């Protein structure tokens, strides 16, 4: 039995802390829980959690939002932004979010192990019963979505918020 705090809120806090600190944007829950980012605009990255639970966290957003975040972080004009800069920001955002999520979720003495982020090349996997989805948006109403997949992660979701 893993000692933990509320999972859904742990992720919301992690995303808020990360975006406020790294890209100076506020994040809130999306007003439309049925909203999906159009597939042709979507970019995503994923990272494995290996211990003490096993699962995968994916961060998805529109290419436009990623470009906006990259411009904010690097302080450059949109036309000067490169694909490697955008890829790196997306990966580093997820890396930081997952670290904070696990810190917020698990008890202080609980160690965790996570892998390295990997950009998604294929369409985003289908949401199944072992996936929790967080539908969020920035203060500019740009949507971003987080997915946590894996039976042992979903088992920690006491409140069934998804």
């Amino acid at each position, binding site marked *: 039995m893993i000692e933990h705090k509320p999972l859904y809120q742990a992720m919301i806090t992690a995303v808020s802390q990360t975006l406020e600190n790294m890209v100076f944007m506020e994040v809130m829950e999306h007003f439309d829980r049925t909203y999906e980012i159009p597939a042709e605009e979507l970019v995503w990255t994923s990272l494995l959690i290996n211990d003490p639970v096993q699962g995968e966290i994916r961060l998805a957003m529109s290419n436009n939002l990623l470009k906006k975040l990259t411009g904010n972080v690097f302080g450059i004009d949109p036309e000067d932004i490169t694909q490697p800069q955008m890829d790196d920001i997306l990966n580093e955002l997820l890396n930081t979010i997952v670290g904070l999520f696990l810190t917020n979720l*698990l008890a202080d*003495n609980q160690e965790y192990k996570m892998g390295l982020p990997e950009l998604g090349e294929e369409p985003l996997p289908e949401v199944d019963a072992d996936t929790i989805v967080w539908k969020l948006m920035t203060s500019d109403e740009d949507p971003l979505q987080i997915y946590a997949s894996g039976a042992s992660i979903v088992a920690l979701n006491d409140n069934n918020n998804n």
Partner: protein
Amino acid sequence: MKRIIIADDSTTARMFIKRCLQIIGLGDVEIIEAEHGKEALTAAKAQEVDLLLTDLNMPVMDGETLIKWVKASPKLGDLPVVVITSAGNPAKEAQLLELGAHRVLNKPVSPPMMMDALADFLDD
């Protein structure tokens, strides 16, 4: 001029760390960027270095292995090492301090966190 190595596989993370260093008054130090522990170790052996800032999760050589190599080296054993990671928690922090890390900071790092962690270094 002081010399600092920043080891992180993310360009974004290295840029954030550099920005924090500038904000806390370390804008005029020489920064050496490394994409993984092995590159950082090679750079540290090649020249006099005053501080090593390192991530944990990196390809080729991770931060924990880097700290072990640094602390086992007669030349680098006294080099202060500050870990900046998204994979830190109190249990991990204790383990890293035991290995010889000077401080452990959690991402996202901020100027006040950096200022506090590098207070000794800034005093010199």
